């Protein structure tokens, strides 16, 4: 039977993997824990441990088998679970920590590097269980290695819960203090969201939403290096041509996600949920979203034009990606985690990229202020105000926004923080020194905007 694929196409695929860092960023198994609620914390923790280890037993071996079969690296195998505040509502503060440790142990047992879903949805208000989960975050995140947490404080439909925003500023600060010996690493595992998606495969914000099935496989693709190469090929083409080149490339990248998702779903006997189209960078050279923006003609990421470049890039990625997969979901936006992107780090270091520009980028398609190190003496109210600004952008634009900032204890602007591995390293960035505390102390809820009234 003749070969239906040309030599050029085969070599193109191989080049993408070998030279341009094409990989599948994550296969994330979503597991419902709604049947794990027991009358006391220990029994609940045991039920959670049993269910996670039983359900995800084959996740890592199957992922590795797929890597070998297709010759495409799958960087992470991960698990997301039902927001723990829904499962452990009645456990009290101490009970939550026991549950967090059970999740950590289960993740280690099955060999996944992160387990997400230590989460609460409090956009309109908090139950006692939500409050206990949030209060437990500094200890839970500083005494576990693999547990990731998220708190949704706002939606377009509900408005912004400013009491929760105020509380999260203090919690982020406390989580940094609790892990001061590791430069506030606990904060790298904590995301504060507006309009959080229920099927996001990417950490640290993944959880298994309440509308999800018993178990599901979601896939996150990567590939900034491949897009970068496509952009560099024709440095002087106009934007229509450039968008078309990016679309073609995004299509191919996403097809790999679709293939791996279908294969994992079949091997594990678990339904295939979604492919998340986000271009996820890594600290590796050439695997940077900032490099793509610069290849589009900006001297440095962060200068004037960056927002337009990012908007165009991500729209083209979505258009190409949406055609390549039957089910697109999750965040499917641009990831610009500063510490995880070599080009972003370089742009911050030369003074081209600031917190304010990063915030502007979240207005178009970035999903948030991600992995940003700020001075350790940043007041909790300032952190809350940063969260409020992001939540407002998400609420008004009907999109997901998130904040993952690390107020690094003892560090000041210009210092450097090393988180290691995929989390990378980051220069400490300045925040505005003018106070927001009177604004944050008002409390209450910012009402849902007119955008919510779409029925």
């Amino acid at each position: 039977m003749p070969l239906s694929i040309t030599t050029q196409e085969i070599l193109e695929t191989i080049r993408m993997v070998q030279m341009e860092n094409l990989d599948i960023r994550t296969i994330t198994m979503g597991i419902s824990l709604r049947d794990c609620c027991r009358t006391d914390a220990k029994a609940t923790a045991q039920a959670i441990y049993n269910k996670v280890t039983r359900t995800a037993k084959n996740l890592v071996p199957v992922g590795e088998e797929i890597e070998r079969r297709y010759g495409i690296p799958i960087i992470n195998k991960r698990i997301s679970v039902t927001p723990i505040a829904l499962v452990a509502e009645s456990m009290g503060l101490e009970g939550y920590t026991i549950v967090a440790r059970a999740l950590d142990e289960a993740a280690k047992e099955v060999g996944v590097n992160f387990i997400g879903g230590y989460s609460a949805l409090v956009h309109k208000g908090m139950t006692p269980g939500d409050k206990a989960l949030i209060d437990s975050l500094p200890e839970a995140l500083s005494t576990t290695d693999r547990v990731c947490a998220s708190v949704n404080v706002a939606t377009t439909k509900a408005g912004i819960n400013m009491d929760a925003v105020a509380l999260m500023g203090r919690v982020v600060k406390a989580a940094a203090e609790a892990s001061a010996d590791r430069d506030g690493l606990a904060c790298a595992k904590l995301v504060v969201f507006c309009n959080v998606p229920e099927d996001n495969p990417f950490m640290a914000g993944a959880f298994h939403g309440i509308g999800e099935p018993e178990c599901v496989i979601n896939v996150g693709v990567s590939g900034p290096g491949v897009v970068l190469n496509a952009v560099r090929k024709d440095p002087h083409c106009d934007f229509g041509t450039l968008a078309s080149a990016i679309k073609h490339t995004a299509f191919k990248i996403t097809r790999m996600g679709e293939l791996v998702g279908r294969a994992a779903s079949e091997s594990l006997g678990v339904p295939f949920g979604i492919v998340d189209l986000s271009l996820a960078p890594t600290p590796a050279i050439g695997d940077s979203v900032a490099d793509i923006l610069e290849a589009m003609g900006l001297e440095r990421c962060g200068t004037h034009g960056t927002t337009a470049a990012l908007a165009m890039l991500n729209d083209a990625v979505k258009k190409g990606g949406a055609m390549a997969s039957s089910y697109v979901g999750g965040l499917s936006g641009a990831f610009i985690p500063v510490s995880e992107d070599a080009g972003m780090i370089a742009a911050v270091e030369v003074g081209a990229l600031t917190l304010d520009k990063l915030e502007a980028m979240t207005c178009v398609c970035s999903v948030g202020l991600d992995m940003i190190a700020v001075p350790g003496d940043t007041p909790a109210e300032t952190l809350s105000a940063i969260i409020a600004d992001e939540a407002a952008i998400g609420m008004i634009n009907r999109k997901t926004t998130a904040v993952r900032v690390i107020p690094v204890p003892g560090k000041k602007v210009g210092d450097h923080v090393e988180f290691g591995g995929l989390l990378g390293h980051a220069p400490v960035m300045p925040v505005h020194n003018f106070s927001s505390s009177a604004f944050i102390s008002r409390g209450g809820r910012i009402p849902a905007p007119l955008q919510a009234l779409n029925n």
Partner: protein
Amino acid sequence: MSEKKENRVIVTVLGQDRVGIIASVATIIADAGANILDISQTIMQGEIFSMIMVIDMAVATISYDQLRATLEQKGNELGVQIMAQHEDVFKFMHRI
């Protein structure tokens, strides 16, 4: 997933040209009981050896993982890169 259908694997060899690359790779594939369906070989830019083989493993006597490992080892001996990947990866990327 692919075991039910034809089990076609693409073997790609890239590297510095030298005597005996095709013979070595073909021998490993024959020893594995796999059938070579198609082969295409060129020397790119006058020196880089590139060969693409389509093989059918439906009646192979060793597993895909074993074949892959044997080919990789031979690649190291010959100083070339030998990859084996399931055909679906290329079909999926370039065809709908």
